[in-house]
């Protein structure tokens, strides 16, 4: 079943067409890869899905319902969460706070409840806190929970990004280059975490990645984007040998 379906989407930035009548689907329960040369429109596509950009035309369906036109926070409410190419942790906040801020519909997020009914907040905070600790244990950052997020290493910030998405109890997670700047050991851990999240939590992943090694290991199927449109789709091994893909990456081979 198609969890995410993009139909004929177009995005223009003034005169530049970043996404050009792109259509694709992400099946539930997969780890779908999205590859393509620089400037192919991958991140723009993520921004369109998650409500950070508005499409010029086309439709985006999530679980059969339209999500194009929704604001970023509304997309999250539907169950789609993203990470960023360059981690955007909340620097002056602790690792724990970075996660505890995420859960939706917290009663204590209204200014009145903490003032007038603090006991409600207290109970809720205990639950959110234990959930945050659980997610931190899952990604292996539990020891750093009281550290300021700005002090984490690059790789730890990547893990924190993943933890932030899991904290939202998502159905679909969009990872924008999870492997960039991550050492091989951490990469193994990241791959294991993503696979475990899919297996145990039923999360579907849609992953932009340049590291072909990681793509081969992690993703199936793989979608190839070039100049704003999909040019190939299929199992990683097959996509890798597709002449259209080779041409897009290397240029003018045919």
């Amino acid at each position, binding site marked *: 079943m198609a969890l995410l379906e993009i139909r004929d989407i177009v995005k223009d930035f003034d005169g530049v067409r970043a996404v050009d009548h792109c259509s694709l689907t992400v099946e539930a329960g997969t780890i779908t890869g999205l590859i393509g040369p620089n400037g192919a429109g991958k991140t723009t596509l993520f921004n369109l899905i998650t409500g*950070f950009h508005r499409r010029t035309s086309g439709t985006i369906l999530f679980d059969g319902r339209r999500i194009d036109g929704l604001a970023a926070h509304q997309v999250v409410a539907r169950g789609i969460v993203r990470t960023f190419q360059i981690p955007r942790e909340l620097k002056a*906040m602790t690792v724990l*706070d970075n996660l505890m*801020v995420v859960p939706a519909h917290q009663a204590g997020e209204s200014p009145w409840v903490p003032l007038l009914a*603090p006991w409600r907040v207290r109970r809720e905070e205990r639950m959110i806190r234990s959930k945050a600790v659980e997610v931190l244990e899952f990604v292996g950052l539990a020891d750093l*929970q009281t550290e300021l997020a700005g002090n984490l290493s690059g790789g730890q910030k990547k893990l924190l990004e993943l933890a932030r998405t899991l904290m939202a109890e998502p159905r679909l997670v969009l990872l924008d280059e999870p492997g960039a700047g991550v050492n091989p050991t951490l990469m193994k851990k990241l791959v294991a975490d993503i696979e475990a999240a899919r297996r145990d939590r039923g999360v579907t992943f849609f992953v932009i990645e340049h590291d072909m090694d990681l793509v081969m290991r992690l993703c199936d199927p793989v979608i190839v984007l070039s100049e704003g449109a999909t040019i190939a789709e299929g199992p990683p091994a097959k996509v890798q040998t597709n002449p259209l893909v080779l041409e897009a990456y290397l240029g003018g081979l045919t």
Partner: protein
Amino acid sequence: MDIIGNLDYNIAFVVVAAIYAVFALGLNVHWGYAGLFNIGIAGFFALGAYTSALLTKASADPRLFEDFKFGGNLAASFEGIPVVGSLDLWFVVALLGAAAVCAVVALGIGFLTLRLRGDYLAIATLGIAESIRLVFLNEKWLANGSKGLYNIPRFLGDVVAPRNYDYLFLVVVLVVLAILYLAVERITKSPWGRVLRAIREDETTAAASGKNVFKFKLQAFILGAAIMGIGGALFAYNVRFLSPLTFDPLLATFIIWAMLMVGGSGNNKGAILGAFIVWGVWTRTQFLPRFLGEPEFRLFLIGFIIVAVMLLRPGGILGEGRKVSRPAWQQKTASPET
């Protein structure tokens, strides 16, 4: 120096410093928590001060308000409301009214400007503050224009002898400050405050975490403005004279920023501490000999303190610190379990 004179001076100092502390608390909600670059504090300052003055019953002596029809008439039309025994509760009405008017105006301003980020919001708030001042200057029917409002009646002025009034007002101001501090502390050390801090750190991440950034910013803007309105009201009752010239950017905006920066942005105790320190430096230096006592030099001194604090303790004297999310009222009960 005679002891009574000294005492009076110190009381007057604490009263004004505490009023500034109220403003610093409001600014801390804007900047310290939500990261809203509001350099138009003077606008809410003026709005709160004028609102409370206009709402105050012109009961004591109508002649005091002969130039000042609007406020007098307005108050007269409310005749017969809250007087409990000899307790004149107009003060409370005026205080809450000032907060409410600032909140409503902040809602309107915020709706128009809070989609702007950083510097652009600053420019907008600066312009709006000046506009508010100009409205009070030019709309003579409203608040007597440039002649200003004077002899604003004292709260409970008939309860104590005039010479003892300062003691009473000191208590009132400190009680209001304490209530506001406790309330703000509770509201900001909560999931709500956590979302604000997230927005301050990175709006994009906050949105990507499912938070309606605009809604939270608007709430913070309104709350901070309402607190500033209460500060303005206390100010009006203290000086008992308001004119549009009272609200110049130096003493109604800049110095409050200095207080928050020095005391510690993101820390409510820091905001209060900063208010007392900066106001102390500003007032105690006026008696220095020669050029040292000139406003220009004192201003330089405050600038110097800001720079020194920024270099030595970039977060301010108290600073935000490493908060582990836990509501203020249970902070002592447990240390983070690992």
